[in-house]
């Protein structure tokens, strides 16, 4: 008994306790719902059997029905475009800004802090603001483009099938850039100064220093930010709800919004769960990349 108490306060037991609490928490609040979601995707679910766990098992019928829908592939393609374009935009602009603030001119640090405002704004608020800015008749973006002479007639960002998805991407890039910038700034500041000094003495120019020192030293930060970006973009829901609602005609619909629409607007919970399961696979892929790139970081 004393041995157990001792082990619990200072020993293996303590280690196990430390691991068991968060693990139990994760299992109860993430693991079980996740399994429940997977289970639902193999069942026939309607709203009146929502309270029970045992429901008619239908095998892969939900998956087959899903891929028989004409809108399925376009929506998954939209999701891919949305994720790729959002991450690319967020990363390139974020990296650029991080390098810019790295120069450390007067006021750089608090200016960098101000950029975080976009990240702490609730998604629905960001969505509502962009909704106004992107409005076809009175939106400020059209006004600026028109005054600058770039367009001769208004672009209907939200309602033109050619632009709707890009309208949401634009808003999402704005939303996520500062987060990219901050994480990359942290990575940049961890690179030892003397590396650059030595390279400079050896006659390496700016571009060579960037490619041979900055990029390799940033590998783990970049891996982490890209996989986090994938997770955050696949989670992005508020902007769709606020700007286009997935319309017009699914032109800006993506998997995550579609799953919600099916579950909570059309009450097709099984179909909604099916899409979620497919998305879980992609997020798991991102998690593997994330874990691998941060593991390297720890080993340093």
């Amino acid at each position, binding site marked *: 008994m004393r041995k157990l108490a001792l082990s619990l306060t200072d020993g293996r037991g303590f280690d196990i306790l430390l691991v068991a609490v968060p693990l139990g928490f994760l299992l109860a609040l993430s693991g079980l719902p*996740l399994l*429940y979601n997977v289970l639902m995707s193999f069942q026939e679910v309607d709203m009146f*059997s929502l*309270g029970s766990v045992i429901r008619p098992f239908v095998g892969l019928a939900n998956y087959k029905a899903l891929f028989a829908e004409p809108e399925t592939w376009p929506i998954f393609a939209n999701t891919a475009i949305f994720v790729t374009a959002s991450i690319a935009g967020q990363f390139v602009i974020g990296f650029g800004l991080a390098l810019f603030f790295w120069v450390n001119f007067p006021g750089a640090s608090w200016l960098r802090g101000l950029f975080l405002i976009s990240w702490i704004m609730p998604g629905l608020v960001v969505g509502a603001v962009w909704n106004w800015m992107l409005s076809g008749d009175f939106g400020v973006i059209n006004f600026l483009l028109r005054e600058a002479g770039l367009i001769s007639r208004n672009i209907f960002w939200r309602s033109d099938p050619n632009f709707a998805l890009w309208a949401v991407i634009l808003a999402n890039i704005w939303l996520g850039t500062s987060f990219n910038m901050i994480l990359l700034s942290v990575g940049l500041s961890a690179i030892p100064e003397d590396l650059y000094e030595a390279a400079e003495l050896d006659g390496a120019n700016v571009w060579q220093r960037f490619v041979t020192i900055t990029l390799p030293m940033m590998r783990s930060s970049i891996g982490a930010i890209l996989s986090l970006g994938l997770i955050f973009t696949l989670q992005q829901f508020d902007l769709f709800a606020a700007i286009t609602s997935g319309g*017009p005609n699914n032109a800006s619909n993506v*998997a995550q919004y579609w799953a919600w629409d099916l579950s909570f*607007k*059309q*009450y097709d919970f099984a179909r909604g769960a099916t899409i979620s399961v497919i998305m879980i696979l992609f997020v798991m892929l991102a998690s593997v990349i994330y874990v691998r790139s941060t593991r390297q970081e720890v080993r340093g």
Partner: protein
Amino acid sequence: MSIRMCLMAGAVALAGIPALGMSHASAEEITLRIWSLDKPEQPAWNLAKEFDDKEPNIKVEYRLIQFDDVVSEAMRAYSTGQAPDIIAIDNPEHALFASRGAFLDLTDMISKSSVIKKENYFKGPLNSVTWKDKLYGVPKATNTIALYYNADMFRAKGLDPDKPPQTWDELLAAARKLNDPARNVYGLAFSAKGNEEGTFQFLPWVQMAGGSYKHINTEGGVKALTAWKTIMNEKLASPDSLTRGQWDSTGTFNAGNAAMAISGPWELNRMTSEAKFDWRVALLPIPQPGAERSSAMGDFNWAIFSSTKHPAEAFKAIEYFASQDDKMFAKYGQLPARSDITLPATGDAKKDAALKVFQEQLKYAQARGPHPQWPKISKAIQDAIQAALTGQMSPKDALDQAQKKIDAVLG
């Protein structure tokens, strides 16, 4: 997305817990639980309170639910045995619950009631509480859509404000005349949004042309969608009508950026304070002279859950609510779903004139459905509207595709 799923699963699990501590209602005083989306300045909140004060032996617990949550909350509660006694439910969702036996059959109670009489209600609202010839609820209120127009702009463009457009052709002709891009004025404002609002606005057109939600790809349906397409193609309405709801669309009318607008009586209070011009309301234009009139029918119904332990008391509460119907417009601007009530004048000439038109239009209002899978039918129609208006499909093809999906649901 999986997070939402998790939350839901968690809520289902938690909903079981309060069941343990709930069975201590005393023998003489019973508790009625009422759910509705009405806020303190709206009817149900106050009616529930009045009923609570009036009946010494009945305690009323009122719970406010957000519009988006009504159905999912109710489903969850019913499937876990936690349903309230009374709920206010949006009319297209009524059949879903009635068809699954979640709502109490009120047919006998209504036939014996001295307050609620079947024949006093408009056909559309009554139809929405009906499932297989039985009544599963009582219409709480009703609304419909009609054509608002800016009489000042009519005069400025040489149109007679006393002769609003009667047919679709006249509507289009008027919109063309009123359209003034140089001044940022569109001829018409309406909503073709890809949600229930789009269906709500579109179905009346189909019905006037002789179609219905069951037969959407008929000649009439195609004619209706083609008329909408003409409006969009000629830019007689803002292209943003595709992603904008009725409230925002009518906002542009109030601001003088649209000369006509299709919307409902819920706009009246805002329009009275915001619109600084001579606005009027006309019946929805019909496809050709002599065609049948039709309109959309909105608003909520009262229903009693079949799991209630106090059906008599719950019905008594609904009887009390119905007995107050005649005061609802003056107090809260809500239109009763009844033909036997003459609404008193409000004193505002424009509002009173508009009210007359809406009451006339209500006679032609048709319920959406009733069908237990209404959201799926509605979605098929929304998709067709959006596919046609964005030019990705012809109206005929889009409606053919919708018909296929609707046939699959109707079986």
